């Protein structure tokens, strides 16, 4: 299953739950208490929305959850975001665990009373644009201004997260973390300038479908590659038949096509879990004899990469550290 597809589905469930919540419990409660009454026009996926200039009670869902926690936004309620927990710092994880849950990962887990109790003055829906169309926006807007800000392609987390932080009035801390990321990325780009840009890289992603006998190949700008791109890594080739979202930068060939897909690669990176173990779809590839016969594998030019699901600058800093760790042997060759 592609990551974006999975996330789209989960985001939709959460968002739909929010809409229902509003419909059930917030009749006549239009507009949470505004902080100081000052508003501004804000461009979001759902159009131009009038939002508080300095929101004080923000509810976040989906991708907006880790972003706004990291940016120090005034959150009063969040959806569950279990997949991002391994990437959170201890401090952020504590905040995440202490905040009231207004929705789970799926609609059925939503506490329908909790969202109304939070009386938000801004709701940030962090789901991709197509999913927002499934939300009953009118009901949601009867509680508080709603901005939908979600990624359409994996690498869009940079712009999306900044827009989310901007809406929530939390740009200051956000930009500080972003600067730290940029500095670290530049540092690594210099460090690997003599080896990385010359390599033809390929990446095996963590969302292949073993049940369908395929694997995920990721190209430039995908989940497993976009942060490596920032330090000079280049993944050759492109999707044979481009689709929308993550399908524009990753594809799912049959395992039978592994040799033709990666024969030309000088080096291959592959997604691993935070503990270093290969997820099942990656293990399916790594355990095959076709993999063992690839030139890059025979040349010992394979590199596991942790934290490929990063979708905030703080998380992406961990990915940079992981890339530095895995690519370090290249400097000795």
């Amino acid at each position, binding site marked *: 299953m592609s990551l974006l597809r999975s996330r789209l589905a989960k985001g939709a469930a959460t968002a739909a739950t929010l809409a229902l919540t509003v419909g059930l419990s917030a009749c006549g409660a239009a507009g949470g208490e505004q902080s100081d009454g000052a508003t501004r026009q804000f461009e979001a996926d759902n159009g131009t929305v009038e939002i508080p200039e300095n929101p004080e009670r923000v509810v976040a869902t989906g991708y907006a959850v880790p972003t706004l926690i990291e940016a120090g936004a005034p959150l009063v309620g969040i959806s569950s975001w279990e997949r991002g927990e391994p990437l959170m710092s201890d401090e952020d994880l504590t905040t995440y665990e202490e905040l009231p849950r207004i929705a789970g990962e*799926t609609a059925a887990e939503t506490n329908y009373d909790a969202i109304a109790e939070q009386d938000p003055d801004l709701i940030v829906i962090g789901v991709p644009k197509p999913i927002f169309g499934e939300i009953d926006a009118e009901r949601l807007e009867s509680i508080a201004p709603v901005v939908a800000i979600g990624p359409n392609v994996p690498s869009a987390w940079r712009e999306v997260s900044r827009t989310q932080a901007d809406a929530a009035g939390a740009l200051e801390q956000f930009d500080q973390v972003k600067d730290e990321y940029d500095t670290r990325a530049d540092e690594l780009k210099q460090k690997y300038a003599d080896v990385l840009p010359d390599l033809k890289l390929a990446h095996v992603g963590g969302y292949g479908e073993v*049940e*369908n006998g*395929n694997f995920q190949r990721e190209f430039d700008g995908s989940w497993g590659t976009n942060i490596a791109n920032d330090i000079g890594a280049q993944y050759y080739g492109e999707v044979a038949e481009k689709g929308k979202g993550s399908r524009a930068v990753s594809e799912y060939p049959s395992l039978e096509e592994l040799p033709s897909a990666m024969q030309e690669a000088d080096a291959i990176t592959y997604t691993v879990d935070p503990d270093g173990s290969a997820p099942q779809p990656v293990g399916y590839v790594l355990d095959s004899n076709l993999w063992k016969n690839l030139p890059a594998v025979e040349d010992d030019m394979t590199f596991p990469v942790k934290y490929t699901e990063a979708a905030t600058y703080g998380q992406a800093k961990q990915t940079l550290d992981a890339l530095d760790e895995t690519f370090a042997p290249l400097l000795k060759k």
Partner: protein
Amino acid sequence: MTSAPSANPPTASTARPVVLAVGVIALVAAGAVSLAVGARAVPVGELWQALADFDPRDGDHLVVRDIRLPRMVLGIAVGAALAVGGALIQTLSRNPLAEPGILGVTHGAGFALTVGAALGLAGSAISQLGLGVVGSVLATALVYAVGRHSTLRLLLAGVAFSAVLMGVSLGIRLTSPDALDQYRFWSVGSLAGREQTDLTVPLVAIGLALAGALVIARSLNAVALGDTVAHTLGADVARVRTVTLLLITVLAGAATAVAGPILFVGLIVPHLLRRLTAGSVPWLVGLSALVGPILMLVADTIARVLLHTGEVPVAIVTAFLGGPMLIWVVRRYGAGSL
């Protein structure tokens, strides 16, 4: 309804050996095509080389030996297990709509997988296989404990228990994204991606159960006439029923555990053969063991080439083929053939 076994039409008697011979040839052909067709274009000459003179450095040979051959063997085993399981349950229950999963096997396996996924125990193929087996066996044992006194009661218990398991599973999946993710792939049965899993135990179990089905088939001839007649003919109805149910559980449970729920094969294959076998349960079981794999291999080959974007789960193809085939049988031979 199963027709009486006594007066077999001469045409059916003479046709059976011909169908058997044609079936064997068709199975070999389907197996060959199954080895030849896939995402990677493998020259026909390399197919034989891959089998007779395997070169572990050759990509074509690896595809044939490591991926397609195990998948073909799996398709034969699953097809035979489901078809024979269907023939046994339809004969035993004298119900044309019965299929192997009706005793709770499918939903038992699905329930176990859902619970296992929610508890984080279904992360590997082998653990999913184990959960499927355990779920199938436990569900069927419970159904048998409730409905063992009569076939009708057994079927009703199976349907009721399946509904309960389905509901509880759904509830768990709605509150557990991981369980939902793992279940939704398993729930669309497929033969792909199993080649790295050690399937020795389920395949041996299927082989033994198929042999057992052929042995018990003669006794089922009498039971198919009804308990009273069977008793009159000297059949040990209780023993035959118990053994048959055990065989159905092993066949359907093992097939479901390794490939997920694949519907229609167990339903359609016995119907395709019923008129031809003219009430002979041994022939029905034997030919089902031949035609089931053919249907499965053909469906699996179609599944690989149906969409240019990638293969679809074989269960979708079997359902797509099975529905029209069932309608054709009913229209061609009338409801009496069922």
